[in-house]
């Protein structure tokens, strides 16, 4: 009988954990004209969600492999500003998924029910840093992609309260949607935001991960996030060009023109510099591709919890397991471009003041991370993780130039 209750709870999936309240770490509301303050690394936002008991029950029913996750209505207050009904759902799968009563990842869709944006934003994503004791990996990772390839999401921080319960500190992530494309267009990073944006994150079949990539007969697994359904014709064009290149023994002209290789190679260099073991270069996983009308395809990073994990000089980087990397490496000219990009971008990243960026992030998040009532790392683990990051930022550019066969 002693073990019957815990065993029954395990079988039923119940997790009767109760959490306390952490320190109030959020910043004072600030005057704003645009959405820049939401992603300001000098402040921690405050987000309050109010859910009905029915909505809570719905969210509790979702598990790591629930697909799609269920979206419910919640009342939201962002930095003292009541923004009415928003759509809320849990995010994540194996590794990062946590249930509603723990510290889940969230998707907040501002306009799901009201049709109204919040400071121009349609949605934001809240990441729980479940795989990151430092709590600052993701802001550093997205900043790296931003620096080398120009295509990335902005990040910030938020202290979340759900029905007045303190859910602690979260990484706030700019959702990649049509508004995000609009921002890229405004900044001149793309010429036209009316193209198709696809998610290339892995899907699962009978709980088994199925990687999504070009040229594997799995074009239909690319998930159309924004744009028009054209039957994956844009994706298939690249897949066909990759297969044609395999027969030719070098990259086909079609593939050369269909992909913005400068941007994609910069993305792949960032994957390696960041030691990302859960990205396009590794899975492939956690990436998006955008097809601008009349322009070559570009790539964006998504969900960067796997960064700073694999040394940049490891042998795994020498033989790309992804289709685009493999096609480029098999082509002498493209391979040379890739190596040049690696040298150039390593120098660029070395010149950046990463240590002060890291120090600023650590100072901003220290109290919230250490006092997080739902945090799963000890202070000692956090300090070790942050010390490792500091060392990584010092030596990554040197290591990324080394091709070692461990």
């Amino acid at each position: 009988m002693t073990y019957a209750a815990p065993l029954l709870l395990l079988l039923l999936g119940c997790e009767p954990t109760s959490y306390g309240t952490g320190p109030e770490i959020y910043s004072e509301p600030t005057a704003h004209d645009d959405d820049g303050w939401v992603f300001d690394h000098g402040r921690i936002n405050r987000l309050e969600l109010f859910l009905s008991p029915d909505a809570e029950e719905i969210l509790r029913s979702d598990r790591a492999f629930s697909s799609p996750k269920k979206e419910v209505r919640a009342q939201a207050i962002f930095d003292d500003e009541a923004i009415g009904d928003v759509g809320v759902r849990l995010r994540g799968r194996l590794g990062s998924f946590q249930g509603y009563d723990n510290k889940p990842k969230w998707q907040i869709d501002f306009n799901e029910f009201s049709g109204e944006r919040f400071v121009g934003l349609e949605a934001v994503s809240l990441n729980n840093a479940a795989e990151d004791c430092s709590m600052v990996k993701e802001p550093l990772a997205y900043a790296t992609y931003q620096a080398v390839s120009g295509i990335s999401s902005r990040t910030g921080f938020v202290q979340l309260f759900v029905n007045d319960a303190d859910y602690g500190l979260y990484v706030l992530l700019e959702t990649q949607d049509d508004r995000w494309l609009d921002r890229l267009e405004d900044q001149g990073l793309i010429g036209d935001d009316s193209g198709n944006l696809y998610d290339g994150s892995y899907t699962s079949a009978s709980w088994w991960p199925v990687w999504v990539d070009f040229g594997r007969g799995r074009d239909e697994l690319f998930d159309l996030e924004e744009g028009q359904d054209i039957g994956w014709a844009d994706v298939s064009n690249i897949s066909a060009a990759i297969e044609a290149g395999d027969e030719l023994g070098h990259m086909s002209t079609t593939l050369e023109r269909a992909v913005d290789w400068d941007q994609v190679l910069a993305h792949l260099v960032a994957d390696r510099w960041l030691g990302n073991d859960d990205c396009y270069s590794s899975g492939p996983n956690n990436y998006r591709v955008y097809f601008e009308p009349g322009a070559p395809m570009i790539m964006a990073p998504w969900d960067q919890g796997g960064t700073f994990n694999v040394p940049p000089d490891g042998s795994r980087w020498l033989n790309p397991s992804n289709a685009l990397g493999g096609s480029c490496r098999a082509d002498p000219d493209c391979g040379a471009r890739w190596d040049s990009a690696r040298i150039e971008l390593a120098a660029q990243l070395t010149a950046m003041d990463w240590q002060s960026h890291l120090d600023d992030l650590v100072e901003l998040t220290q109290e919230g991370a250490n006092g997080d009532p739902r945090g799963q790392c000890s202070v000692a683990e956090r300090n070790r993780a942050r010390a490792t990051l500091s060392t990584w930022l010092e030596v990554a550019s040197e290591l990324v130039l080394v091709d070692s066969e461990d």
Partner: protein
Amino acid sequence: MLWPLFIAASLASAGADPPPAPRVVGLGMGFQAGSQAIHGVAWVPAADWRTVEVRVFTGPKTSVDFGTDWLRLILSRLLTSAPTLPMSVCLHLRLPTDGGWALAVAPGLDLGIGLESVIREEQLAHRPLVALSPSAKLGFEHTSRGGHYDYGFYLRGSTGATFAPSGTKRYSRLVLEMTHTWNILGTR
């Protein structure tokens, strides 16, 4: 479609003399490992633990087998919003050969029943889920001296679909199966 079944049944009935004390019920378990195609997605590895297998012998060389997989029920409860209990039933025919081994053929049906959680009018609701697939297995099995237990190795195939509120998904499975059953009532 039924001719292989008729041939197997005829061969089974034409075999050696039946054992003097017939088996009645066998209880055991088994493992399956192979591959599964989720149509429109990919072939992926498949593994099952036939947590309980019950054989009700209807004759010296025939039985009706019922299988369940409680491990998958627990995993689906913990990891998905659609807890499902996989079950199977098949007609198991044996053709004894020299050396104590028998050729076995078993046409049947795989059935999964479960509940999928969905949103209905902003409330949580549970709707039934059914997986259905005809199956067949072919292999060899051995009965111990005295008939206390059987074990067998089979190639097992099935194809069908899961019908759930979230949609219909077609699938096919091809696995190697190993089972071991103890004859708990009656031995020869």
